[in-house]
């Protein structure tokens, strides 16, 4: 047993991790450019404003990811003896909570525009000596940002799956899901073009609903993590079979009579305890315990700081299923 050892990602994941960081930097760069372009063409369209806020907000998770990956593998300290693995969850909670709040505010804003029947003026822009309807420029920028979102989603998804990285996965989903927002904004602008003034605020309301939905989904996921939820399968609510596998392996040890396991997700790693009742006559119990800890930890690369505890009796092998 070692206290103060930091979690190590297996060497085969190092290139993926480096790649994930590069992709995050790329996201920040592209999304910043997108935000600037949307801001420049925004005008007084509510749909454009909402699409712009979405674009700016989608920088947040990428930035949070980069900040968190800087700290998550720091070795445990006297003050934080369990390490910094939860940095990712915390940064994600902050990002998701702000996302939901801003989404709600935008929704109220858009609904107010509809209620007060504020009509969006969209004038002309001057570009390379041509003066034309600003709506075309808006649609062009929205289409470009739609492509960027799809590209980023496509880059992040396989990385997230290999690294078992829920934060990155959620980010990929968010980037990919953005096409809906941008398509809605394009629809809103076209509706303005055809003289349906309500199209703008309606599109904005739809986009803000999407933001809120996204934020809520992410909050639920990350709160589960902070509540010591048992390991779940990526992207789904099903529990991973690892807990059961670990218990079975422990029970198969010749010196073990019964075993129980409790695991939680801690960012990228899984931590927890294996409780075992040793058989009455066991030689070299300490050495056996040491060997069992190593063997059980090797079952999955995510297991970190697994503790095997000797107990005299077990009331039950698993907590009740709710």
């Amino acid at each position, binding site marked *: 047993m070692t206290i103060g050892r930091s979690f190590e990602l297996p060497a085969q994941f190092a290139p993926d991790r480096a790649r994930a960081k590069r992709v995050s930097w790329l996201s920040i760069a592209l999304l910043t450019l997108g935000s600037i372009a949307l801001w420049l063409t925004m005008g007084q369209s509510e749909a454009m404003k909402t699409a712009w806020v979405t674009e700016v907000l989608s920088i947040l998770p990428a930035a949070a990811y980069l900040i968190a990956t800087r700290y998550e593998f720091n070795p445990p300290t006297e003050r934080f003896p369990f390490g910094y693995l939860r940095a990712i969850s915390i940064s994600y909670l902050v990002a998701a909570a702000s996302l939901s709040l801003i989404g709600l505010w935008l929704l109220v804003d858009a609904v107010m525009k509809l209620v007060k029947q504020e009509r969006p*003026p969209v004038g002309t822009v001057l570009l390379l000596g041509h003066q034309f*309807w600003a709506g075309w420029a808006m649609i062009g920028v929205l289409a470009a940002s*739609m492509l960027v979102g799809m590209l980023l989603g496509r880059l992040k998804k396989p990385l997230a799956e290999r690294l078992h990285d829920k934060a990155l996965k959620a980010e990929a989903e968010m980037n990919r899901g953005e096409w809906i927002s941008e398509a809605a904004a394009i629809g809103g602008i076209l509706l*303005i073009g*055809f*003289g349906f003034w309500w199209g703008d605020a309606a599109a904005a309301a739809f986009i803000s609903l999407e933001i809120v939905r996204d934020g809520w989904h992410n909050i639920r996921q990350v709160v589960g993590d902070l509540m010591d939820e048992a390991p779940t399968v990526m992207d789904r609510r099903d529990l991973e079979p690892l807990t059961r596998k670990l218990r079975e392996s422990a029970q198969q040890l010749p010196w073990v009579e019964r075993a129980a396991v409790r695991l939680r997700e801690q960012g990228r790693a899984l931590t927890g305890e294996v409780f075992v009742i040793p058989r009455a006559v066991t030689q070299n119990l300490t050495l056996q315990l040491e060997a069992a800890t190593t063997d059980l930890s090797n079952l999955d690369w995510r297991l970190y700081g697994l503790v095997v505890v000797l107990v005299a009796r077990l009331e039950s092998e698993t907590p009740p299923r709710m």
Partner: protein
Amino acid sequence: MHELIVAGLLLLACGGCRLPRDADHTLERVKHGTLRVGVIRNPPWVIDSTGDLRGVEVQLVEAMAAELNAGVAWIPGSESELLTSLHSRELDLVIGGLSGESPWKTRVAFTRRYYLDSTLVSPASSEGSGLSGDSVAFRTGNPAAVYLRKKGAIPVPVEDLAGAQRPIAASAWKLAALSRSGEGALLHTEQRIMAVAPGENAWLNWVEQWLARHGSSVPAMLRAGGK
């Protein structure tokens, strides 16, 4: 990828049709009809001498109406009154030297600027730049005082700039009318715009394109004092 194809088709489909359209058909209505124009007295943009309307923007609107074969109904009033009516589409256009930075810009549709109005500090013949530490005359009530103070000058309000012996802060066209040097330091710029009913985007686009074509004649009109 389907979504991209759909978006592309939509764009192609709309390449042919003329966008944008008005929500309330203003452009169609004013062609060969009547243009309802709110006028705010504000020389030299709108000069109202006993019912006789003159001024730079009045001239512009008359030319605009001629191109549309439209008659003009001039409705005089205050800025807040006229812009409130414009917001509810009781008017088609409001003029009177409106500034692009006006807080009304989110409630009605402002056009692109047709003229950039710059406020300069014209030095008195004997003195230097007229900034930082110097006292500079401005017409009472003119916002130039704020910008002067920011630049470290001491603003001195006067009723009439014509007789002022010290440096004065005023618009370029005003300086020209007073035959003062326009070579002074730039204090502030303001966008001259017109206000259009919100949501009438074909009309807004028409006015903006018209102003872009005719904006170059504004300096000459200002030199003539809007007559």
